[in-house]
């Protein structure tokens, strides 16, 4: 079992002519919480999709568990590997035509032929973990944003994955929900040893639970290290992002021609 669960090697990716990554390398240690931070639009979600094999890099490699090269896997093998990982989408992505219970039961029913009694027990256990056992009968439309995200988290851990990728888990949440989510992520990491990758731009929240962090901007990793190192980071772009300064190396303005001339 390798120490590193996911490793990104010299990866480049572009959408059409729009370059998103230009030769980045990162590694995500087994059993730890790693944060990937960066201004919006730098392709943090794209990174998760690359790890999950939903997108294929133009060059470079994504290595899973030491020897599995995700981009070169065929569909069937990829699906086998995906059973070991899961992703928490920003919107929750619950199936709107199923109840909370059925949503959490969905991956279990899809992949294992278990008696309904056992499925029920498993689902209630997962829902209890996120504190929503009482909401099992509700439909997704009846949930608040924070509850939907917790249900999605219960669904994400339904198959006991070894890796969870969180896509902006804190975006648009009230402080209480945020605290609940932070606590849950930490709990899942510590008690179940689930490796976590958190993509976020909520610097303080994410640094409070991360063991290691990367800051991405401008197609590259511009800073990396433990949370303490990141906060002390002195490169101008990373400093601007972490301390939330409006203008700097990451410009406030979208590139445009001369203002006077255009008027």
């Amino acid at each position, binding site marked *: 079992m390798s120490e590193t669960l996911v490793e990104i090697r010299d990866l480049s990716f572009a959408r059409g002519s729009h370059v998103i990554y230009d030769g980045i390398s990162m590694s995500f240690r087994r059993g730890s919480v790693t944060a990937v931070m960066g201004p919006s639009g730098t392709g943090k979600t794209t990174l998760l*999709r690359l790890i*999950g094999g*939903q997108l294929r890099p133009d060059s470079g490699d994504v290595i899973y568990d030491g020897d599995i090269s995700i981009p070169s896997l065929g*569909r069937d093998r990829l*699906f*086998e590997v*995906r*059973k070991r*990982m*899961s*992703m928490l*989408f*920003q*919107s929750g*992505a*619950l*199936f*709107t035509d199923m109840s909370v219970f059925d949503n959490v039961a*969905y*991956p279990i029913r*899809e*992949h294992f032929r278990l008696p309904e009694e056992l499925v029920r027990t498993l689902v209630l256990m997962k829902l209890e973990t996120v504190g929503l056992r009482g909401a099992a009968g509700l439909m997704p439309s009846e949930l608040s944003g924070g509850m939907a995200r917790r249900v*999605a988290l219960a669904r994400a851990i339904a*198959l006991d994955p070894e890796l969870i990728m969180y896509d902006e888990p804190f975006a648009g949440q009230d402080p209480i929900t945020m605290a609940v989510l932070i606590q849950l992520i930490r709990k899942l990491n510590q008690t179940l040893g689930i490796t976590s990758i958190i993509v976020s731009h909520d610097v303080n929240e994410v640094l409070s639970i991360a063991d290691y962090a990367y800051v991405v901007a401008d197609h590259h990793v511009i800073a990396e290290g433990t949370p303490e190192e990141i906060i002390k980071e002195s490169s101008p772009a990373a400093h601007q992002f972490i301390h939330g300064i409006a203008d700097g190396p990451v410009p406030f303005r979208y590139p445009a021609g001369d203002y006077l001339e255009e008027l």
Partner: protein
Amino acid sequence: MSLFDSVASLGAAGIRFVRHVGEAGCMLFRALVGRPEIKKHFPLLVRQIYVVGVLSVTIILVSGLFIGMVLGLQGYNVLVEFKAEGSLGPLVALAILRELGPVVAALLYAGRAGSALTAEIGLMKATEQLSSMEMMAVDPLRRVVSPRFWAGIYSLPVLTVMFCVIGVYGGKLVGCDWLGLDDGTFWSATRNSVDLEDIVNCMIKSAVFAIIVNWVSLYRGWVCLPTAEGISKATTGAVVDSSLLVLGADFVLTAVMFN
């Protein structure tokens, strides 16, 4: 626009069309080819047959009845001038079986069920439900697209039969019960002029239209831009494209069958 530009844009449109056909073909192939998992897929199929088929029954029956009645009324007015009102039965039955039944049922189906398929798949895409399925190692093509496609293939021919039956009955209602034609004449003339071939052709047409409408609707949803505007465009596009393709295919099929 110069001549050169127009030739170039024609070429671009051609390439775009071929690419869409190729993509749609790949989508359908991946959705339909694979190990069937009857226990898992059968309940999904039944549910979709309910959604696209059973829920379309009302609109099909009402439209069929009225179209049959209107045909009866118009046909009677013309035929009576030639003292040929006894041929009203064959007129209504053949018009409906050969053309109106399969075509109108397919058009109604495209509006009622096809658009809903597109919008549903588009919204599932926009809300990342399809992505999350993929990440759960479930193939959305097999799990979402395939049952919807098969449900449509089974439903539309059945809806077409319903349309035809109630359409002929509508013609009879107007011709016999209202305008006073003899029931016996109506039915015996109808039986004498409708061949088995007409019914088979009606079913063939309906099956082809079912493939067209469902394929186009599902494909438009599958590739739509996951935004409000993208979904609305895809939905409109699904109805417009599938209607036009149905009418075009109808002409080709008619030319082959009745020539």
